[in-house]
């Protein structure tokens, strides 16, 4: 079935055939899965630690850089990097949590935001100093090269893998936090740490591990991005603002909200790239402004 989709004359009146539209919707979903993966980590950290983790972009960048360094120094390729980089960067995150962040939980959100923002600038500056700003080459693993012709578009195998990996990680995380005993402890510890401690649970260690996990998710997304996006020190700061908008729209701290909003906004951004490409980097912020006016807690926010 072929038909054409057009937008109103006032917005340019551009038309595209339905087959092209399906392709663009799929592309939107794929990009959305990147947003979902990144906003998931942010939502976990905010939900459990009450920290607005502005270092997230830098940690995403560190994940990609870690993959590059592994390949250069030890020859370990994409698949080992997908495991090792999140662990290395996660440990780095836990050191930050133990030495700096843990003193800020009782203070206003602003302190955590300032600290993590400052850390992001330092990490980015150091990476730029060592590797320059143009970027580092990282090639795609041979097993994921090529693609499938779906009739309405050519789907690269790598993008199919991105969508699969991102969905599994998102659902897995949501399941652990919302449906398991460990998740219940975590959620309880955020509500009332003293009471949970009284039950003999080591709350500080659990919080440290949670932060490490959130940071690991960022690094995982970084390794996923390395073969298709330019690996440069500023790769994180370009993305992080959008990801924050995703989290705010979804509702700060809501895990399912972050994931659904991530995919949804990917699609909306994708369609904007077709019909009104000049606005594609502002559309998410327009939506954010509207959502904040109508529902200040975000679409899936728990607290009013």
């Amino acid at each position, binding site marked *: 079935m072929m038909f054409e989709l057009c937008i109103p004359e006032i917005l340019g009146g551009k038309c595209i055939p339905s087959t092209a539209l399906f392709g663009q919707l799929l592309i*939107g979903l794929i990009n959305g899965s990147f947003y979902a993966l990144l906003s998931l980590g942010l939502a976990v950290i905010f939900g459990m630690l009450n920290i607005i983790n502005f270092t997230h972009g830098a940690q995403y960048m560190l994940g990609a850089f870690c993959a590059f360094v592994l390949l250069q120094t030890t020859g370990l390729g994409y698949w080992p990097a997908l495991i090792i980089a999140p662990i290395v960067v996660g440990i780095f995150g836990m050191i930050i949590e133990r030495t700096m962040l843990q003193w800020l939980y009782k203070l206003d959100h602003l302190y955590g935001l300032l600290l993590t923002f400052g850390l992001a600038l330092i990490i980015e500056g150091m990476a730029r100093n060592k590797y320059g700003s143009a970027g580092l080459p990282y090639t795609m693993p041979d097993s994921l090269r090529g693609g499938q012709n779906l009739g309405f578009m050519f789907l690269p195998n790598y993008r199919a893998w991105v969508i699969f990996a991102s969905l599994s990680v998102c659902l897995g995380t949501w399941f652990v936090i919302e449906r398991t005993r460990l998740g219940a402890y975590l959620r309880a510890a955020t509500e009332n740490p003293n009471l949970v401690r009284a039950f003999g649970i080591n709350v500080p260690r659990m919080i440290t591990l949670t932060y490490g996990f959130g940071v690991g998710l960022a690094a995982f997304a970084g390794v996923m991005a390395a073969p298709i996006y330019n690996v440069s020190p500023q790769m994180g700061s370009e993305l992080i603002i959008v990801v924050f908008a995703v989290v705010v729209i979804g509702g700060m701290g809501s895990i399912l909200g972050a994931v659904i909003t991530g995919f949804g906004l990917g699609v909306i951004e994708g369609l904007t790239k*077709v019909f009104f490409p000049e606005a594609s980097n502002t559309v998410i912020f327009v939506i954010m402004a509207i959502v904040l006016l109508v529902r200040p807690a975000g679409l899936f926010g728990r607290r009013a």
Partner: protein
Amino acid sequence: MKSKFALAAFAAVFACGTAQAQQINVKIGVLSDMSSLYADIGGPGSTAAAKMAIADFQKTNPNVKVELISGDHQNKPDIGSQLANQWFDVEKVDMVIDTPNSGVALAVSQVANQKNKLFIVSGAAASDLTGPKCNANTIHWTYDTWMLANGTGTAIVKTGGDSWFFLTSDYAFGHALERDTMAAVEKAGGKVVGKVRHPLNTNDFSSFLLQAQSSKAKVIGLANAGGDTINSIKQAAEFGIVKGGQSLAGLLVFASDVAALGLPTAQGLILTETWYWDMTDANREWTKRWQQERAGKFPTMIHAGVYAGISHYLKAAVALKGNVSDGKAVAEQMKATPTDDPLFGKGSIRPDGRKVHPAYLLEVKKPAESKYPGDFYKVRATIPADQAFRPLKDGGCSLVSG
């Protein structure tokens, strides 16, 4: 008595001589992107090139004292013009150089004109700087969008790539590059079937690439730069654009971009530059010295342009006996004197401020052909200086009479 007089006369002449070689003071500001997507094509590498130019000039002219400052415009025209204002008014800077990002360069060019100072552009590309937006205080040194379009665009149409789709960066530079390339393509007998304008610093190009793919154009012209070009090329490979029979034309690709892509992804790409580090012995020797400050990196034509621009500027400063506060007069002097430096050779600056020299059509080597780090290009053709840039009469610059 007579001999005493002669001695006095000699002393007087000698005094004049020393007075002529008296101290000359100039202050230069390198205004560049120091921390974002263009920091490797200009940035700290431009400052390093500026230092080399000053050191080399002082070897033969020890009486010239040059103070050098540098600043980051963060790719924002307002910050760039604010910094330029402050440099000219408070810091007493005589000349500003470099400034990648055409949006910023066009703003700073206005400031230099208002304050009657000098602006030498090496990093920015928009050909408007010596076209409709030209002024008597701006000199455009290294390259421009017309030259890129003419070099790469014409060459590709001649080899059969006669239908084009553009991915264009949505600001002054991208618009200028798209316009100039469209003109070159159409002049050579090709046609443009579509275009899409994307915001600066876009991460994901798949949506745009899909549009380009379905347009069935033979050539996808990348009217963007830096990280945007790298992302476009990387993702075009992923979406099988080249395998599907379409080819990519990188309209502005620097050596640093090729390094970031890696030869396996970048091989076969055709591009135009005015300077390549591995082309002559003089370039290689200069690169070795430059790398003492920028270890492991390779200089771009922008860095070379900063070096050559400052060298020529300092010659003018000496000829004017250090009276460099009148920017128009310095520009006049620079235009009146033929240029000669180890990197670009002999050349000249036209009345519209355009510096002319040859351009080179280059092709990125296959990984197997590259023998050492930085061995990126094969030279496919040399475009002589009188054909490389837009003819003087076609620019619409008000400084050109008739």
